[in-house]
């Protein structure tokens, strides 16, 4: 009797997890499979979907918009991720030192994490107005009154990277700080007694202990950057502009799906994005195994 009730109560676990499992089946896993199915069709929301096999993927290979978006995304990912990785570490090391006013300044530095990305886009759209504040900071003393930050096909993608990095560096600083807090104090004390300089301690004690954090920051920031599109949507003069110079894959999904109503193409682009993100995740897992 006792034994039966004990086995019986474990079924409660299933009851407890069931709502969540069903939810994800309907709103996560099914849509992924459904999305793959859609990518094999031509579908415009009005007519019946028409099966075309892998044609949509084949067409992407010589689709100029897709190739542009692909290139822009890669440039953005590499351009944005590397500075984030280095600068957020440098800032974390700085704010890990003991000095007066540290907590207050750290809080100020952290502020850009608070506004939603759309707000970041709107603020910077104003700051980067051709005759705006940033022009004044950059060239006001030389009498320059107009810089087309967001209207120039070279400057605009660069501006996306700078603003993105401005917004995410404080976040990654917090991750590095959590990693630094995990470095055993005894190690540092022992090294100090042995007469190690701060630079030596950082290089030989902190960094090796931070390897897991380093992989995490690299993976997270590149996956984040892959999915970027809000800045390119709301900060650029027109979504993806000027002249598609800030068109990224995330934006292309939106454009094909909800502007041109080419659902098959949109789904194919998103499947490609997913595959790229899975590759990054796989690399991260590989690194993690080696680190541990």
């Amino acid at each position, binding site marked *: 009797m006792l034994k039966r009730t004990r086995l019986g*109560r474990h079924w409660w676990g299933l009851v407890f997890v069931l709502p969540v499992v069903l939810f994800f089946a309907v709103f*996560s896993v099914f849509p992924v499979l459904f999305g793959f199915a859609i990518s094999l069709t031509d579908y415009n929301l009005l007519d019946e979907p028409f099966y075309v096999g892998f044609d949509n993927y084949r067409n992407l290979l010589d689709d100029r918009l897709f190739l542009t978006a692909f290139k822009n995304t890669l440039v953005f990912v590499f351009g944005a991720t590397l500075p984030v990785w280095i600068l957020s570490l440098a800032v974390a090391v700085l704010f890990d*030192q003991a000095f007066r006013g540290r907590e207050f300044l750290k809080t100020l530095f952290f502020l850009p994490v608070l506004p939603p990305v759309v*707000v970041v886009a709107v603020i910077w759209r*104003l*700051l980067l107005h051709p005759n705006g504040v940033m022009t004044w900071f950059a060239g006001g003393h030389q009498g320059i009154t107009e810089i087309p930050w967001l209207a120039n096909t070279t400057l605009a993608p660069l501006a996306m990277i700078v603003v993105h990095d401005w917004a995410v560096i*404080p976040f990654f600083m917090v991750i590095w700080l959590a990693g630094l807090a995990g470095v055993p104090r005894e190690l540092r004390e022992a090294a100090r007694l042995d007469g190690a300089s701060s630079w030596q301690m950082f290089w030989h004690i902190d960094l090796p202990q931070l390897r897991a954090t380093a992989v995490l920051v690299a993976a997270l920031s590149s996956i984040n950057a892959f999915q970027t599109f809000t800045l390119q949507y*709301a900060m650029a003069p027109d979504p993806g502009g000027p002249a598609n110079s800030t068109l990224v894959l995330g934006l292309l999904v939106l454009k094909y799906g909800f502007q041109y109503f080419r659902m098959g193409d949109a789904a194919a682009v998103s499947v490609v994005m997913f595959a790229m993100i899975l590759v990054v995740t796989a690399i991260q897992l590989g690194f993690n195994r080696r680190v541990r």
Partner: protein
Amino acid sequence: MFADFDKPPFRPLLFMAALLLAVVWAFPIYFMVTSAFKAEPEIMALPIHWWPQDFQWLGRFREAADFAPLWWYFFNSSLFAVTHVVITVFFGALAGFGFAKYDFPGRTLLFYFVICTLMIPFQILVVPLFIEIRLFGWENTYAGLVIPGLMHAFGVFMMRQYAADLPDELLEAGRIDGASEFYLFLRIVLPLLTPALTSLAIIIFIWSWGAFLWPLVVVQDRELNVLSVGLTNYSQPYQQVPMWGAAMAASTIATIPIACLFAFFQRYFIKGLTAAAIKG
């Protein structure tokens, strides 16, 4: 660069470096908030007005609300975010508890099933999910807006870790007293998980409050839009003259809830962010 920083004589240098960084990073936020209280021509004035010369208490906010249904946006964002927080926290804790403390057949498999969804970026979901929601007849409704994001797998993942650390004796003691399993969850597990639940609630609120892609595609009525989408109305190209004052006022409103969470729950806030980062 990292030369003996922590010896006292070098601290002014550290302070100056930190001060410079803090000022550069905080400036755009400062500019947003002060511009929300400036008269419209002052916003573009150069050299910039560091403080509004013609201080306007509510002018820009009223302008923003006159041009677009700003308070509807705010209400919709709140409804969207609060529903997601409540449902994710409750069902996330319930499922986390289920996965951690019960040994039912298929447990590992189902857990991986849930965790796998963490790896799915939203962009791959947006097209099929939109078509699915259309089939349900939920396009352009609150249901379509809110339901697909009701739960986040991160909640289950985080809660399972915390629930696993709860002592079994506590649950056994409850069972001996004749408590039902669900009663144990409500009366013992939930209260003990409160600190972790607070962090989870904050992180889910931040994610939901900032959500942009899904609200952008699923609703068309202005009165159904959330703040993050509605915001773009003030600065978007088809608006001939951008209303920068209104844009800054609305942006400030969109930032206040998260700033409040940060101000009042700083420890949980940072904990939530770090936990969310380490999930993978």
